[in-house]
């Protein structure tokens, strides 16, 4: 019997490459990576994995490159400036749908569609309200694919991935930095559920989808059972040999949670008013571009106006003022993520494993990126 062949679109990315590596060792299916340029393809090919190069936003090219494949898993997302991204998403979705006509597409979305701070009152599973460019792009792709699925007789399973951690993943890098950072404290001692997913569990979840009857469904994919932030931080501390992260005291955790909730429940107009007041108070030492809400608001507006000329002009003004002597935009902070409530709606049910399964790989990766001599001597045998 012919084993199914899975194409991983975006195979050089963080999730795509881990998925391809894992599926490549699977006896029950074959996997091939789809990349859009030589640089990405090289990352895949040097690991001895199969790879094809095709323009992912060109329906003819992508269809040709994936003609012999049975299932596609999309791990890619075009990321340009806000005004170009909508059109790029449209082309990409059309191209994916054409390539998957009559086939099964597993599309990886993100819990970012629910917003940075997930709060039970604000969040809806069917009609989420993302508050970042990334979240809105992910949601747009979901909607485009849902619409195109009917036209192309494609079965599209959408998985909204939690914050993915593990070796070579951006979230783990952020956690390593936080662990090293003096003064970082974990709210509620990390007892809240994280909405995160280890890379091993993610692969297990996707495998489950690949081996079951294709369903037109949208599901969340997090660790099963859900892990707490404490579990995840301890895993990362352990892998770096650092002490456990201290906790933020309860009263401050509660205060921050209440503030975030108030902020999340306020409408865009209220937020604009508040931020404008902040801006006004700081004039003339700062100006509008230094208001934290300015950039996301501008991105939001540009996505809707879709004028590349206007975008180029506005960024020119923004950058010029920035270079002239303003401080970098203050980091809006990662705290909302650690204070979020569990994702709404149904989660994919699969047999998850404990976060500890990712410990070895995390340790190896951490050693490779943090210890110059040790990592290089081990990695480069000719030395």
């Amino acid at each position, binding site marked *: 019997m012919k084993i199914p062949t899975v194409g991983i679109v975006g195979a050089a990315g963080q999730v795509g490459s881990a998925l391809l590596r894992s599926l490549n060792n699977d006896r029950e299916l074959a996997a091939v990576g789809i990349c859009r340029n030589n*640089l990405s393809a*090289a990352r895949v090919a040097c690991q001895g*994995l199969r*790879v094809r190069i095709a323009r992912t936003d060109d329906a003819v090219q992508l269809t040709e490159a994936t003609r012999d494949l049975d299932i596609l898993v999309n791990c890619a997302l075009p990321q340009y400036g806000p005004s170009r991204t909508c059109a790029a998403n449209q082309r990409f979705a059309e191209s994916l749908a054409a390539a998957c006509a009559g086939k099964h597409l597993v599309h990886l979305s993100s819990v970012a569609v629910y917003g940075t701070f997930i709060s039970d009152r604000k969040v809806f599973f069917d009609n989420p309200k993302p508050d970042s460019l990334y979240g809105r792009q992910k949601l747009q792709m979901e909607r485009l694919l849902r619409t195109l699925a009917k036209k192309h007789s494609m079965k599209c399973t959408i998985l909204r991935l939690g914050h993915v951690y593990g070796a070579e993943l951006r979230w783990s890098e952020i956690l390593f930095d936080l662990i090293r950072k003096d003064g970082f404290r974990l709210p509620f001692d990390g007892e809240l559920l994280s909405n995160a997913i280890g890379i091993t569990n993610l692969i297990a979840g996707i495998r489950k989808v690949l081996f079951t009857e294709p369903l037109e469904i949208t599901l969340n994919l997090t660790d099963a059972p859900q892990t707490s932030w404490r579990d995840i931080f301890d895993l990362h501390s352990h892998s770096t040999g650092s002490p456990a992260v201290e906790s933020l005291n309860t009263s401050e955790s509660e205060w921050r949670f209440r503030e975030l909730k108030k902020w999340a429940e306020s409408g865009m107009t209220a937020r604009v008013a508040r931020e404008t007041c902040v801006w006004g108070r700081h004039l003339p030492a700062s100006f509008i571009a230094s208001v934290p809400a300015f950039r996301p608001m501008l991105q939001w507006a540009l996505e809707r106006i879709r004028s590349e*000329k206007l975008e180029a002009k506005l960024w*020119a003004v923004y*950058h010029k003022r920035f*270079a002239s002597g303003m401080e970098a935009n203050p980091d809006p902070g990662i705290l909302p993520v650690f204070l979020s409530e569990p994702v709404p709606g149904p989660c994919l049910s699969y047999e998850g494993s404990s976060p500890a399964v990712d410990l070895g790989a995390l340790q190896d990766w951490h050693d490779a*990126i943090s210890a110059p001599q040790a990592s*290089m001597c081990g990695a480069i045998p000719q030395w």
Partner: protein
Amino acid sequence: MGIVAHEPKDVREVSIGVIGCGGVVESLHLPALASISEVKIRWVCDSSADRARSLARAWGVGQAFEQIDDCSDVDAVLVATPVGTRQAILAKTTERGWHAFCEKPFAISANEHRHMLECGARYGLILGAGYMRRHHWAVKQARDMMRSKVLGSLREITASESAQLERTGLDLSSYRNNARASGGGVLVETGCHLFDEVVFVSDAIRADVRTCAQQVWNDYEVETTATGCIALGSGEQVALKFAVSGTRPVFAGIAFRCEWGEVRLRIDPAKGLEVFLKQAHPYRLEVPHPRPGQQHVLAAFRCEWLHFLEAIRTPRGWDVSRETGLITSDFIAQCGEMAKVSRFAVPV
């Protein structure tokens, strides 16, 4: 709060032309230039007229050209086209008597580099290269530490970087997929920055490569590892281990191992500097940036432009070989000559 670098006192206006209108020009060079009061950007020029026009409109630049021959005279130009195309462009700009600031690396080979320096010298022009990492606060701190010998003599340097080039949005039409235009791979694209930091911090005057291995995929070099040594002005030889990889994660930074400790410089300017003191129990000391808001890469671009503009006004003391990174070009050339190349191909 302002960015640290001080502008030159002479406020004579410097007219600038921009050749090449790619992403780095739009997001970093133009903002940096536009923020310097005495700079006047006269025109932009790109092989794509549409691109040049759109950038000119966005930045309020008066003219946009498709051909350098059509451009009006300026004091200096930014040459930000792919490295493989620069020799011909610089030949034209030097003939027109324009000082030139090139994106890094300065040239595709050591010979081409020397030839371009000779041309510049013949016309008495200032040439510079965009090795902006030299202007990061942590890099300057590391150099000061090395010069002060506070940790004793330099013994060994280990430099490595994962060449995480921006891959999203690039398709096969990008110059980065063209081995000739891009200079051949990650060593030229990313490794030149890394090696330039090594040279800048250690004040090296020469590099000798002993062994080198390169991995090549579809004519594109995706990993280079090299060993060798660098010679310091004092005559000392310092062992060097170097790796730049577009295919696997490695430590992103440079470790300068000295007699009594080690200085670690991260590629990310926000990560500052780490100093490890060699005692009975090694002691790690983190040296953070005093003004974290000023670590933006744009600040470094602005500093390098101010540095270059200063040289146009006061050319004395401008060491063109050092400023354009001739040792780095030599190092890259030696790697190319010594490299044991392994090509890999995978069935599709």
